[in-house]
């Protein structure tokens, strides 16, 4: 693997967007157990095929999922490269920050008096 740089915001935004939807997260979870056809993806979600195909487009644009059509069946799989890239754990780092800063907000709300409200002008 070569050393590379990437523009972080675009792929991250796509990945965040792709996973913002519970149905798409369900699809990714299903695919983490192995490849599946579009109808196999649709079944547990109780969704129409066109709706699943729409979600699939978003997942493919994010790079998380690839699909190929063999005969009449489109088989979807997770792209292990996308999951292994630094992006996925950079976004994890980012979300760790998000959680911590939320916790900081809760801490500040719980301690309205404290600490060191220094007297400054």
């Amino acid at each position: 693997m070569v050393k590379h740089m990437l523009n972080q915001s675009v792929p991250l935004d796509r990945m965040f967007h792709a996973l913002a939807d519970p149905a798409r997260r369900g699809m990714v979870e299903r695919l983490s157990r192995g490849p599946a056809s579009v109808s196999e993806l649709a079944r547990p979600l109780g969704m129409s095929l066109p709706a699943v195909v729409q979600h699939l487009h978003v997942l493919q644009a994010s790079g998380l999922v690839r699909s190929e059509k063999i005969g009449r069946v489109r088989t979807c799989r997770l792209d292990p490269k996308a999951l292994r890239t630094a992006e996925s754990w950079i976004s994890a780092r980012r979300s760790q920050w998000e959680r911590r800063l939320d916790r900081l907000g809760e801490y500040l709300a719980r301690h309205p008096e404290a600490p060191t409200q220094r007297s400054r002008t």
Partner: protein
Amino acid sequence: MIERSVTHATFSIERVYDAAPARVFAAWATPEGKASWFVGPVGWTQIERVFDFRVGGEERVKGSGESGRISDFRSHYFDIVPDGRIVYAYEMHIDDVRISVSLATVEFQAVGDGTRLVVTEQGAFLDGYDDAGSREHGTRWLLDNLDAALRYGA
């Protein structure tokens, strides 16, 4: 054999808190304040914590996650402007593997009676952090983390 790689990434996160900059700053600058929110995910237990908040001072937060993996945050403070700015550099280790080296800049800006906090991280993320190479693990980990972030409308 480890495939060596470096990915450089920069991101910023902004929050507005209903608290004056001095209070928000104190939550970063005092051991009680920092320990109340700067922790690992649910199921995380602290192994070691060092907090020496001054220019040149060291901070260390080592803990064990639910999976039993050891995370180790080792940091040094480079710039401190009371109620205004903190700059520190840190390295993250997972199970003794250095996974990233970053510069973090925290800015505190007064907005009305509150504070706008901007955290910017500029990092060198090392070797793709392909932990155990397990796709399923990687997926679950990604989803868990993103899920938490997305709930707050990231």
